């Protein structure tokens, strides 16, 4: 337990000191939401809709970059190898990184909620706010797994490039920036394969945003994807040892 607490402390310190890395993942979702969700669309319906999807976008950054780039870098420099040679509790490192990611995910979400509530005219029942927050936090899981797979597979340089591609690809193709309904049909078909799309849809159904929602289908899809990603992560982890 002591090791886990210290490990989490170390992860938080590292993340805070890499501020140049952290800042974009925290500031970008907030400013995008303020711009597209509130200022340009004049609040109201769009503000609710984009609150749901930008929330997913906000937690994606810390998950994919924290795990993708972070793990790749520390694996590259032999740090993970050293950890395996010493009596470090094997899961403490991953657990600590996960907790750190949740902390920064919450930090990225909060300003978006505040903007939505104070400037976007979004009014939700207290219970709905809580459900939405939990939904957004849980969205971390598939992205963390994706990040881990990248981190275990790529060199630190490759991980930076790939994480960016994955991050932007999932955001746009998953309809987190603009609703997929305004996309051509082909792209709507592609969206079905994006975990970000299903997470966005689930968040949308929680806030009861305009449009048709089929949460049970989305839940099924994201569960299957998460299981697949778990398998992929384990495979990448075993292969890198």
């Amino acid at each position, binding site marked *: 337990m*002591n*090791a886990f607490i*210290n*490990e989490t*402390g*170390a992860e938080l*310190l*590292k993340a805070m*000191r*890499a501020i140049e890395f952290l800042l974009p993942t925290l500031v970008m979702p907030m400013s995008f939401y303020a711009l597209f969700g509130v200022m340009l669309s004049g609040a109201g319906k769009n503000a609710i809709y984009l609150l749901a999807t930008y929330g997913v976008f906000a937690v994606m950054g810390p998950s994919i970059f924290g795990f993708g780039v972070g793990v790749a870098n*520390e694996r590259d*420099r*032999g*740090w993970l*190898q*050293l950890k*395996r*040679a*010493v*009596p*470090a*509790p094997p899961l403490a490192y991953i657990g600590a990184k996960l907790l750190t990611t949740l902390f920064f995910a919450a930090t990225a979400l909060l300003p978006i909620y505040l903007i939505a509530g104070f400037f976007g005219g979004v009014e939700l029942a207290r219970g709905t706010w809580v459900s939405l927050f939990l939904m957004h936090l849980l969205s971390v899981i598939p992205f963390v797994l994706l990040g881990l797979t990248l981190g275990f597979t790529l060199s630190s340089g490759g991980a930076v490039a790939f994480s960016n591609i994955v991050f932007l690809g999932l955001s746009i193709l998953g309809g987190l920036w603009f609703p997929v309904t305004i996309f051509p049909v082909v792209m709507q078909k592609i969206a079905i394969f994006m975990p970000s799309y299903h997470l966005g849809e689930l968040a949308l159904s929680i806030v009861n945003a305009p449009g048709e929602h089929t949460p049970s289908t989305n839940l099924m899809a994201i569960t299957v994807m998460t299981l697949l990603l778990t398998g992929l992560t384990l495979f990448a982890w075993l292969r890198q040892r």
Partner: protein
Amino acid sequence: MTITNQPSPLVAEKLSHYFGKKRALNSINIAIPSTGITALLGANGAGKTTLINCALGLLKPSSGDLRVLQGKAGTQAIKQQIGVMLQDADLPDLLTAREHITLFSTYYSNPINIDELIKQCDLIEFADTRYRKLSGGQKRRVQFALAILGRPKLVFLDEPTTGLDIDARRVLWNTIRELSSTGTTIVLTTHYLEEADALADRIMVIDRGQLIADGSANEIRKVVSGAVIRCESNLSISTAEQLSGVRSANRSGRYLEVVTNNGTETLKELLSKDPKLSDLTVQKPTLENAFTQLINTPKKQSTRSNQGELA
């Protein structure tokens, strides 16, 4: 060397390890002495690091037997009693030495007090500087501190001074000697003969995954003593081998290379046999010469077993 009844902390029997088709350890038999500093000496790629990584549980040997502190390599119980400095392991840049040590101290059941360790390893000046800003030598000292933090019985130092300048190397040598004087068994790998000579009570030479020589620094040095004479000459190899003191002779192109026990005598005879020889150099034998020498010598492996009563 004093003979102790303590069992060897690291025993490998017919241990092999393959990377794909490449054989890194070739049925090696080794028993590390239970006290003092043992140097595993060998060229890059000889199998030293593979042996250490097997002992740490990082690699699973392809075949053979390996006992570490009378236990199985890689278990948490064994890891508690081992300290390690890996060859290419760098610590995260953004934490300070003190933070690294604090984190690692939570891994061990009986760690050295953090402030004491910082003092002992001479880290005070830069204990609160981020790792990224440290010099190469300072980084190694932090890694060394992590290696001894858990009061280990056995410490592995894999190429501890590679890439360091001579001053930084000396500082680390002193720290290693101090650690040895407290009774910790140390196994270090190096490809510097000089380093093995300066530190080790026992030197084990590893080549192509096998133990090819084992003895005190003096015993090993004898094999490597003498001189290497290189010159442009038409003398045949067989003639060169007849000269007094010559251990081996080789030819590469127009050049003749002679390894000898007695440089002066050999040189005199060489000059009288071939007055026309030119482009002459005389050098101390390199480790490579020693290896050539050791490999060419028919197997006289003096594996002095002191493993006690091991099952």
